[in-house]
């Protein structure tokens, strides 16, 4: 390798000759492999196959909005001041000039108006949080309805669900940080919910808030939980989630050549990597568009928080809507006796109900295993209709949560439709019980119908030829298959070890391969 010329002067061919066919890349791989032993594992990783289906990208949306959350979040920490110290605002935003507010609120207004690209990043962060939570929910629906949570993937289901809960929690904390009038009311409600827990409630509330509400420390505490503790846990869980995905390999739908014991798809490198990196860019781009064009949480319009003030339309962030709805339609049942109070009107909708709901979700894989007695490995996905009861149960839960979400707008609905608030309330009290039941039954019926009635669904229709036999009988038979009627898939092959890149024929010639599914190769 010792030559008189410097490396720059050597031609590509010379480099290749001295290092082997793959040139410098080969040298780099060798050096790394000698230190880390990664050649074999790395190769297997590059070969790793990802089954393809549109629904598999839902989790990617969640992952990439998390990436955006981290990036925009870091930007925001540079300018946000987590402090409840009262200052008088004299900034760019004139309508608030001279108004007393906490430093947290002042710095958020500052981010929105005085920091370059601050408003864009702030709104992107907020949108990304909503998209993060929303896409986790949709992704989990996909997992649930296709049975992807079954053995061996129960642990990933649990991790995913935990991430959803942490995401909701962190969304609430982040929403609270600007200390504006609406989010401050949210904090007040959170304090009261903590207080409602029997035996320990007032202690928990006092410990979290460093004393009686509002105290002067809650923004700081929320801040450190929001920017450090929960993101760190989430980051670890994202790693575990993806690690398990790689280790257990992705599930796949049934199809040609696909079994419980193989994976059919396109390879990590370069196909999947290109698609998923492109998707990262698309998610980021979409969030940037939302962040700059769709206003969200304009805190400068709400004004700073003052404990005795309230704005008219108090609405929590989207993902909290179902809890707010539950609080609204709960009857005012408190229990008192023996010198104590149990505020069921808060305890049930805000603590017990979500507790039951999430625990049911946590336990579902175990419950299903127990009910069906099915302890086998499942790598092939169900279609939702294949499991009418499971699909119906999932749909019922979604219906319940959606009804509660709508119930969080009782006042808006009553105003809009001109019905009394009382009628709206009772409508939702009935709906919250009836809608899930009806949804369960309808979904179950539809699944059963599809399962038994629609065996040919998804296949291309063929003309029916009706012919008359000499005896006068009419017979209907499907017409012969025309070319292209049935799309023929190739038999899956292993990822090749090496690809022969040399031209097979002189440039300009075309190779025509006649077997179905193979296209011309132009050179």
């Amino acid at each position, binding site marked *: 390798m010792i030559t008189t010329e410097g490396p720059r002067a050597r031609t590509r061919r010379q480099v*290749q*000759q*001295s*290092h*082997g*066919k793959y040139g410098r890349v080969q040298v780099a791989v060798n050096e790394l492999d000698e230190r880390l032993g990664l050649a074999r594992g790395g190769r297997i990783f590059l*070969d790793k196959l990802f089954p*393809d289906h549109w629904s598999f990208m839902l989790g990617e949306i969640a992952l990439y909005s998390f990436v955006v959350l981290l990036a925009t979040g870091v930007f925001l920490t540079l300018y946000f001041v987590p402090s409840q110290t009262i200052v008088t605002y004299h900034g760019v935003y004139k309508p608030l000039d001279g108004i007393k507010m906490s430093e947290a609120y002042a710095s958020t207004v500052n981010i929105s108006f005085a920091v370059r690209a601050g408003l864009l990043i702030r709104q992107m962060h907020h949108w990304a949080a909503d998209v993060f939570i929303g896409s986790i929910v949709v992704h989990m629906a996909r997992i649930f309805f296709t049975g992807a949570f079954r053995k061996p993937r129960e642990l990933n289901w649990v991790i995913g669900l935990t991430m959803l809960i942490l995401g909701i929690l962190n969304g609430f904390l982040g929403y609270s940080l600007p200390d504006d009038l609406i989010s401050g009311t949210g904090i*007040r409600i959170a*304090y*009261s919910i903590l*207080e*409602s827990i029997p035996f320990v409630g007032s*202690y928990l509330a006092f410990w979290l808030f*460093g*004393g*009686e509400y*509002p105290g*002067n420390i809650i923004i700081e505490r929320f801040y450190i939980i929001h920017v450090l503790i929960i993101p760190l846990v989430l980051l670890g869980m994202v790693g575990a989630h993806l690690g398990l995905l790689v*280790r*257990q390999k992705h599930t796949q739908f049934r199809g040609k*050549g696909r079994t419980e014991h*193989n*994976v*059919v798809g396109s*390879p990590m490198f*370069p*196909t*999947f990597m290109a*698609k998923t990196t*492109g998707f990262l860019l698309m998610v980021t*781009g979409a969030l*940037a*568009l939302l*962040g*700059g*064009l769709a206003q969200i949480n304009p805190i400068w319009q709400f004004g700073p928080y003052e404990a*005795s003030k*309230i704005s008219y339309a108090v609405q929590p962030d989207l993902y909290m809507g179902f809890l707010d709805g539950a609080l*609204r339609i709960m009857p*005012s049942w408190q229990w*008192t006796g023996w*010198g*104590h*109070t149990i*505020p069921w*009107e*808060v305890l049930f909708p805000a603590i017990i109900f979500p507790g039951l709901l999430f625990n049911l979700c946590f336990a579902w894989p175990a419950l299903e295993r127990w009910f069906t007695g099915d302890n086998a490995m499942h790598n092939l996905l169900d279609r939702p209709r294949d499991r009418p009861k499971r699909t119906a149960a999932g749909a019922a839960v979604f219906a319940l949560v959606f009804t509660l979400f709508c119930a969080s707008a009782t006042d808006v609905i009553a105003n809009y439709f001109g019905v009394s*608030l009382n009628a709206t309330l009772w409508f939702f009290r009935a709906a919250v019980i009836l809608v899930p039941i009806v949804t369960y039954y309808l979904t179950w019926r539809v699944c059963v119908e599809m399962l038994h009635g629609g065996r040919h669904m998804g296949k291309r229709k063929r003309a029916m030829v009706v012919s008359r036999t000499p005896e006068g009988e009419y017979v209907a038979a499907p017409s012969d298959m025309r070319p292209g009627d049935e799309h023929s898939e190739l038999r899956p*092959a*292993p*990822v090749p*070890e090496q*690809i*022969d*890149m*040399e031209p*097979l024929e002189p440039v300009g010639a075309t190779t025509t*391969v006649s077997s179905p599914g193979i*296209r011309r190769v132009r050179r």
Partner: protein
Amino acid sequence: MSDSGSTFETPGTQVALEVASGGPSEGDGHRTAVPIPTARLDDPHLQEAARFPRRTEAIIALFLLVGIGGVAAFGAAYVQNAPSWVLALSMGVGLFAMGVGLTAWGKYLMPQGPFVEDRHPLANSRRDQEAMAAALVERTGVVVKRRKLLGGLLGGGMGIFGIVTLFPLLRSLGPLPGKTLFTTGWKSGTYLVDSTGTRIHKDQMSVGGILTVYPQGKENTDRGQAVDQTVLIRAQLTDLVTMKSRANWAPTGYVAYSKVCTHLGCPVGLYEQLLELLVCPCHQSMFNVRDGAVPVFGPAPRPLPQLPLYIDSTGFLRAQRGYNQPVGPGFWERTTEGNGTA
């Protein structure tokens, strides 16, 4: 691979098109099991999905160009300190277009297979599983069971440490509630003041008027605003009796209720003048002003506590005494007394 130079063909030489399966070939050292044959470039599995690759390439190139334009425009817009919709549009469209281009490249112009690989069962053999369990159980037995005393001491020590750490951890977070939740800033004789600290004179408000009041001196404190806040309503010109036991609590129609909702503590900030209802905007609890703020609608379980008032000789409104019950939402230690009737 130190002698790599000699094991690789030099470029330009035709490599064997197909390597006999099983035969050792360069590069198959990675996979010891079954060597996979070299694929030819015209292997159908390596073909791109695009029907018209040239056209597809052109379209993708267009997307990538838009992407480059977008992110470059974003840079320019940032330098110019453009409004955020310009930043969003340039960055968003740029990244999105670039993403579409790259995804389409992957989808239409890269080999899709279908390729297949085996799923190797995750489980090890029964023997391995047994060995693991045996190691756990038997070694624990050897160490702990044989030395029950030590095991107990160690467990006890760790347990005590765990509990002991909880004390500084939790107790340093905040004070104990004690009687805090039962008290407010209202004392006997406290003047009612508005948010600027001005006392309220008996002639100041007309019927139907409403005002948020605080105990004098507390109007600018956190606690005064969060806990002591009280709504003062002039319901009529003559004394108002909201309940039998509250005969002289509302002189000349001035009636005062805690402004902290008994549901979840929102300020009960809306007053429906015609119906004489106080409305909480959070979950629409409604309290009847004339009947001692008994909830007539919504999830609030208790009336708003009423503050007994009197008018002193100079005509200013003052509190006879503090609230007779904790204000705000319910909690475990809250006693039943004062639940609406007292």
